[in-house]
């Protein structure tokens, strides 16, 4: 029989859909839960998605419900701008050290926006994957939770910072904020730090860094989003004209021993979704999907069929060898069509690289992981949830997170 747990609190690391779900499921089963998020607001990768496959519904819809659940639940505490730097101990009795970076905006911020009005400098818009810029005092996005502004560290110590501070009628700006540390004693730790896009710059043959009209799948999500840098219009990065001939390249890094040896699972379906984005915007648009194998598991096969029924979407079983700049500056995709044996060189308005997912953070304690950096099993250590355990789609992440919540409940209840 295991010793009684010293703490009944559950620590959830990562405020994406996995972490949010794990935290809520545990809290709604009666646990005290602390949710730690590195960024300024919750939602993680899904908050930056335009829509979900196969229903083409908006992730913010589910997030809104989850945020309402969080607001209603007194057992769940959220810390943003925070990271876990150390974890010691074991199930029933963990000690975790948390560091909170300065946000320079206190909780009494009313999100009135006066600070942004006076901010003069702009910083890269992280929420839009740097596709645009935002004022140095900004709301991460319209759906942000907590609904609270952030001050870019760049301006904290500047005269601009002073004027921003002066503009805040409720005195919510604190330019002297310093990183703070605090320790938590918890009975279980759920590790839900999710994923980051595989760096497209590593795929030198695809010239992502050199060609403006070669973008990644996550950037495509922002281009298609109503609150994105182009207000939802899918435009070429080079000249701002509509992209009507688009190539979607699968396995850009995934299934590749030189990059990500595993399959990232979601890219095929995400690309079909992207094909729909383009087709919805232009009835005459042409979309070519380059693939090795189309991986539309279970009922998602229906989504594949839906796209197959569209004559304007072509399917090429081919891993493109390289992308070259065409005479007119358009990216030219080169390779061999393995079914026709034809060697092609096809120009496009826009090329979208379906870059895969890689785990974004490693637990700061001894943890069983596979060679790829995914958390496996949880005997005696942290409990992996969502994409921290492997490439999963949203449903499977929530499924995994709910399972992880049970693990936590078991650890603190026994």
């Amino acid at each position, binding site marked *: 029989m295991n010793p009684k747990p010293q703490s009944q609190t559950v620590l959830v690391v990562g405020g994406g859909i996995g972490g949010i779900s794990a935290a809520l499921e545990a809290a709604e089963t009666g646990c005290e839960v602390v949710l730690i998020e590195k960024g300024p607001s919750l939602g993680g990768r899904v908050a930056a998605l335009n829509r*979900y496959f196969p229903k083409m519904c908006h992730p913010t819809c589910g997030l809104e419900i989850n945020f309402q659940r969080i607001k209603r639940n007194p057992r769940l505490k959220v810390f943003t701008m925070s990271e876990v730097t150390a974890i010691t101990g074991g199930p029933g009795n963990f000690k975790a050290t948390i560091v909170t970076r300065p946000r320079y905006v206190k909780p009494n911020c009313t999100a009135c926006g006066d600070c942004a009005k006076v901010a003069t400098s702009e910083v890269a818009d992280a929420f839009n994957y740097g596709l645009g810029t935002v004022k140095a005092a900004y709301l991460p996005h319209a759906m942000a939770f907590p609904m609270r502004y952030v001050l870019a560290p760049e301006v904290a110590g500047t005269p601009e910072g002073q004027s921003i501070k002066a503009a805040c009628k409720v005195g919510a700006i604190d330019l002297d904020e310093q990183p703070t540390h605090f320790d938590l004693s918890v009975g279980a730790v759920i590790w839900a730090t999710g994923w980051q896009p595989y760096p497209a710059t590593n795929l030198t043959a695809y010239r992502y860094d050199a060609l403006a009209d070669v973008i990644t799948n996550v950037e495509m999500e922002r281009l298609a989003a109503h609150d994105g840098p182009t207000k939802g219009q899918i435009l070429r990065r080079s000249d701002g004209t509509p992209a009507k001939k688009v190539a979607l390249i699968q396995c850009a890094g995934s299934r590749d021993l030189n990059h990500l040896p595993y399959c990232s699972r979601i890219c095929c379906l995400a690309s079909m979704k992207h094909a729909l984005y383009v087709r919805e915007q232009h009835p005459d648009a042409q979309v070519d999907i380059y693939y090795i194998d189309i991986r539309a598991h279970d009922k998602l*096969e229906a989504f594949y069929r839906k796209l197959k029924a569209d004559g304007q979407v072509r399917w090429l079983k081919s891993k493109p060898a390289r992308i070259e700049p065409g005479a007119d500056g358009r990216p030219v995709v080169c390779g061999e069509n393995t079914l026709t044996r034809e060697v092609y060189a096809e120009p496009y308005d826009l090329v979208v690289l379906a870059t895969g997912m890689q785990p974004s953070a490693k637990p700061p304690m001894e943890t069983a992981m596979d060679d790829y950096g995914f958390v496996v099993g949880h005997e005696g250590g942290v409990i992996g949830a969502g994409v921290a355990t492997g490439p999963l789609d949203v449903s499977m992440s929530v*499924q995994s997170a709910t399972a992880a919540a049970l693990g936590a409940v078991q650890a603190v209840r026994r």
Partner: protein
Amino acid sequence: MDKKTGAYLCQGCGLGDALDIAALEKVAKAEFKLPVIKTHACLCGDEGVALIKADLEAGAVTLPVIGACSPRVMTDRFQFPNAQVLRANLREQVIWSHPAGDEDTQMLAEDMLRMAFTQATKLNAPTPWKEGEFATTLLVVGGGYAGLTAANEAVKAGHDVLLVEKSAQLGGSARGWTKVVPSDPPYREPQDNPLPALVAKVEANKAIRVARNATVTKTAGMPGKFQIELSDGSTHLVGAIVLATGSRPYDATKLGHLGYGASPDVITNVELEIKLASGKVTTKNGQAPKTVAFIQCAGSRDPAHLPYCSSVCCSVSLKQAIQLAKADPQTMVYIVYEEMRTPGQAEEFYRAAQDAGVIFMKGKANKVANGAGLTVTVADELLGQEVPLGPLDLVVLATGMVPNSTDVDAPAQEYGAELLNPDINPYPAADESYKPAPIVPTGGPILNLQYRQGPHLPMLADGFADSHYICFPYETRRTGIYACGPVRRPMDMAETADDARGAVLKAIQVIANAAEGASVHPRVGDLSYPKIGLSACTKCRRCTVECPFGAIDETEQDYPVVNPTRCRRCGTCMGACPVRTIAFDNYSVDMLSSMVKAVNIPDEFDEKPRILVIACENDAYPALDMAGIARHQYSAFVRILPVRCLGSMNLLLINDALSGGYDGVVLMGCKPGDDYQCHFVKGSAMAKERLSKIAETLKSMQLEPERVTMVEASIADSARLPKVIDELVATFDTIGPNPFKGL
């Protein structure tokens, strides 16, 4: 203690500059005679909050109405121990969406307060339903890998389990398998079957009561109070149910075109698994096969058989191929596939099979001939020619899986409205090449639910008992009953184990909440529940039929009876009731109707039309908030009434609005039909349905049908909705003022 409503008006965030606060106070004082009316420069600040707190503690106020920002923000600041709070959205939906210092903006703000103050008069603190004993035992149906995992995990969480298995022994489909697809790094070697150890664990566990050769003959009651009757006659009280009935292989006798039945050496992957388990794989002539071909998608991804992908067949064939190749490296093993599906880390297993020398042929297996040895004719897409693959000693059909969402051996029963979603067809009409017949599961119900809406657990069009929501995979239309494993979605053993844990969590969660009289997802913790005034009830049955969750049954006398812990508090019943006799303590047609009537309707000569917008609070309402955040402007003639779900929109509300002089009514709700996005399954669909019947009423009132319309709104419509509203206002303007004005 009698209700004392207090008005707290914020002047922060520009409210003080944009609005005439004094005039707002006057509404509270002159019209509603509120005992306490206070204003503050920043209500959400410590000082402002302390102000409200003090009044509550002093008993000067019992119900604060806060005129400030949206109820979606500052919820933590405006939370007070055991006190309800009402919010009037004067920021996002008034001053951020309408010009400052404008007469119409001011009128809007005042009406917002009138609605809130009126709501306060109708608001009662909900008393949770906690009658009698609540059970904490879990019923797990199905003794396969999913069910065994569920039982074992539930006990670890401190719950007793009743495990019901139809057959004589535990183990299910995976019983007897020696090796399974690897789930542990480095994901290259077939792993030992975890089942035997798990069976032993469950059988040894005192907290798990196992009923073999048993089925569920009756499931009555509700979460926390399910009354279960088994085929052995025994009865049990359980708190929640985990359905883990798994799947069965697709009937191979339907695969004659792939040679099944033509020769004993054409077998299914399940039959091969049995041979592998016996440790000796032989063909009909007793020899070990030297040439073996696996045919993938045997039945799956085929409109004539199973339209979906069974997900696991690729990995299973890889495993079996590796086992054969390792047993004798001279064996020639082929896998004929169209798409190799090894998602995630399983890609490593694909490489392992290639390393073992297995040959992969991309193409369709057109026919299997039985002559001097077997020959599979493959349309080899990579060679670009039709290849006769043979002579082969053994052909293995990778047959897909069919969910056990029904009991094939039980007599079929009337399915009940909710069994399938006839309105949901995931397959595109455009695709002539792919027209799967709708799957109507054979056999009878498994749980035999004693519900008004039928004995079955609802399932999706493909026959799996899965959720239709991407972000809420355990959502169910039968509260307290959670499916897991292959009955929910085609999945392998590793995922099944995970899924079983998830389902158990949801089960123990509903047990905990039911005992508190609290709702589960999505209105988690809501203590209200519908109460039906039977004296007025006309036994029309609309509520019992329309409840998306089958929460309302009927007595012998055909009166509706609510099962509170099945209820999800959407209010669809209340919206359905033609005599408004269904109400929640804190939510009723009367309340909404009074709020509608609370609005000042200027007479027609003022040329200030009033349009009622009934908005779903999950999507349309937040979208309008975000429109405000983005400072999108729209007509100040609209009055927005948030509802839990459009399903709770009662037609009488529209009558009241129109007879009260509104010039138009707009319903804003989620997408219905295919890919419905209503979080109460069919609330917006019901609203649409009801609306189709209102034309008559309007005619009788001599009103134009165009005065009432429905707008499909998503949460991402913050830029679109303002335009839509302005267009509608223009339309209503052309129709002209409502003749009922001022009557």
